[in-house]
């Protein structure tokens, strides 16, 4: 009624541009000083990378502040930051993050279990299951989001349909990489175990899995990336997929609340980096065991 096109949802306290720049500079200086005292944790390359990120955010803030681009279309970084704080304080952001991560974790662990099991089984009984390869080749090139309409038809609205397509997206990279990893097993090692009286399970635990773990982890990292794309697509495309960050982005877009849209995007990017580095550190951990 006031003739304003600003979004209907307002953060309770807006950080001013000046204060935001001071905060950004302060955080950068903190990182630089921390590099002096704890170089083992915060190394030089971290400082370099962080400085470039800070520079980008500062440029973004300046573009919006000077109104080079319409601030309604590209809200300043300070506004996005205050919106993030606001959404976190009312507990809305946490519930959306939980909804997204729940679906992703459910489907990913399902895909890991089924992909590794099937991959090992098919390599063991390759004579019986060789026809599966021709089906897998065909199913692999159909991207998981293409099954969305059918999965809603089969599993109904709600998280189940989203979980199905995320599982489908994560499954193929893990499965195919497991098969490729098991193919690397050397027959000499298997025969050695059998000669010394080991059974099938000894072969699996002592030879097959240690040989294939590297491929399995590569497959899981690719699968996780595809899983993130698929979970976001499922939430964007169907508002009934159990909420989540993608739903938050789409819902805010309809309200022209671009600040919240950018909040959702940055939250997804942050969570993506966290999950990817978790898998990366798992890979390093397993490598030290092997």
């Amino acid at each position, binding site marked *: 009624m006031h003739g304003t096109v600003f979004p209907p949802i307002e953060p309770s306290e807006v950080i001013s541009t000046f204060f935001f720049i001071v905060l950004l500079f302060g955080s950068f200086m903190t990182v630089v000083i921390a590099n002096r005292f704890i170089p083992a944790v915060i190394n030089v390359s971290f400082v370099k990378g962080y400085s470039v990120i800070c520079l980008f955010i500062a440029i973004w803030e300046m573009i919006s502040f000077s109104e080079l681009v319409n601030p309604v279309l590209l809200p300043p970084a300070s506004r996005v930051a205050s919106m993030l704080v606001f959404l976190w304080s009312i507990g809305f952001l946490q519930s959306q993050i939980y909804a997204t991560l729940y679906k992703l974790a459910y489907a990913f662990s399902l895909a890991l279990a089924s992909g590794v099991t099937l991959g090992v089984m098919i390599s063991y009984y390759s004579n019986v299951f060789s*026809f599966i390869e021709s089906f897998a080749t065909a*199913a692999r090139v159909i991207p998981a*989001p293409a*099954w969305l309409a059918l999965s809603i038809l089969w599993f109904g609205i709600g998280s189940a349909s989203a979980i199905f397509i995320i599982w489908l997206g994560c499954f193929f990279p893990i499965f*195919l990489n497991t098969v*490729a990893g098991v193919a690397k097993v050397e027959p000499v090692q298997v025969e050695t175990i059998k000669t010394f009286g080991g059974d099938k399970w000894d072969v699996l635990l002592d030879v097959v899995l240690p040989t294939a773990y590297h491929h399995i982890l590569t497959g899981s990292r690719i699968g996780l990336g595809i899983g993130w794309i698929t*979970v976001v*697509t499922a939430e964007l495309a169907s508002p009934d997929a159990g909420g989540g960050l993608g739903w938050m982005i789409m819902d805010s877009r309809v309200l022209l609340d671009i600040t919240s849209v950018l909040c959702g995007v940055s939250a997804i990017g942050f969570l993506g980096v966290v999950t990817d580095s978790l898998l990366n550190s798992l890979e390093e951990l397993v490598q030290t065991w092997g």
Partner: protein
Amino acid sequence: MRAAINSSLVITFIVVGISFTSHIAYAGQETFDNLSAPVDTWKRPVERGLVSGATIQKIPPLNFILFMSVLLGGAIVAKKVFGKNFSQKAFIGLMAWIIFFLFWELAFHYRLLTTTLIAAPTDILWKFNFHIQQGYLQMHVIATLNRFFVAFAMAVILAIPFGIIAGISNKLYEWVAPSLNFLRMIPPPAILPFLIILFGIGEAPAIFVITLGAFFPIFISIIRGIHSTETSHCEVIETLGGSKIDVLVHAIFPSAIPALFTGLRLGFSVGWLVLISAEAVAIDRGVGFIVQSKFDAPLVFMGLVIICVIGLVIDFSLKWGERFFGSPNRETMAV
């Protein structure tokens, strides 16, 4: 020399692809706009049009079953006769598909499955027939191909120079790597709503996100390829009095070419995924839009078959390129 030939082949492939598909895309769109067939709000042909126009008969299920059985017998006979030219693997794959379709149709024939949740092969064939006659299928396929070729070409054109720069200069890579890593981990469809507000509804947001999706795998593969150059090769060229350009052309580029093809294949798989996502979310034309037609299972299956065929063709040609130009003992990653 070989590097120059390879890159010119890639560029020719892309340019021909773009011009070909865009030419047909506009022609096909015009034809479709001039069609007198009744369409609904989303420009889909209404099947009531069949009453007034040409009637397309459904394939009788029994004929289909008979045809598949004959095919099955033919495959077995062919295996007996041309046994040596038929590899065992291809034969098993072919048999598996024939038996799969046969049993799928039989399940509908004996009413083990119903048409509400899943479609019979004869229904899917009937949809194909109908939509090809209406020009609807051609329009969607060409729209998708055009969009994909434009976006993929943009990704390749951007990724090659940036990848070479980031791969050669380690200093620059160290500065920008963390921010690029953050950008890489944002799923491209997530920024689609933002881009729709920025660019408006249409091709631009979709092409932007597909480019973003295909860019990073190609970019990272080129960087890896350049990092895998053997230093002894560079040193030999420098010792024999070659300049930095010589090192670049004769040592670094040739070792990056196999990695480039691996990257193209990875970039294709991510770009293809993002393309289907973008068409599901933001676009009203393309095969990704066909498969979002809810409550019309035969139509969705038709879309899935088309996606599968296009994907297989592009994937096989890229795989062939990887095998042809790549070094033979390189590990290929299963995606």
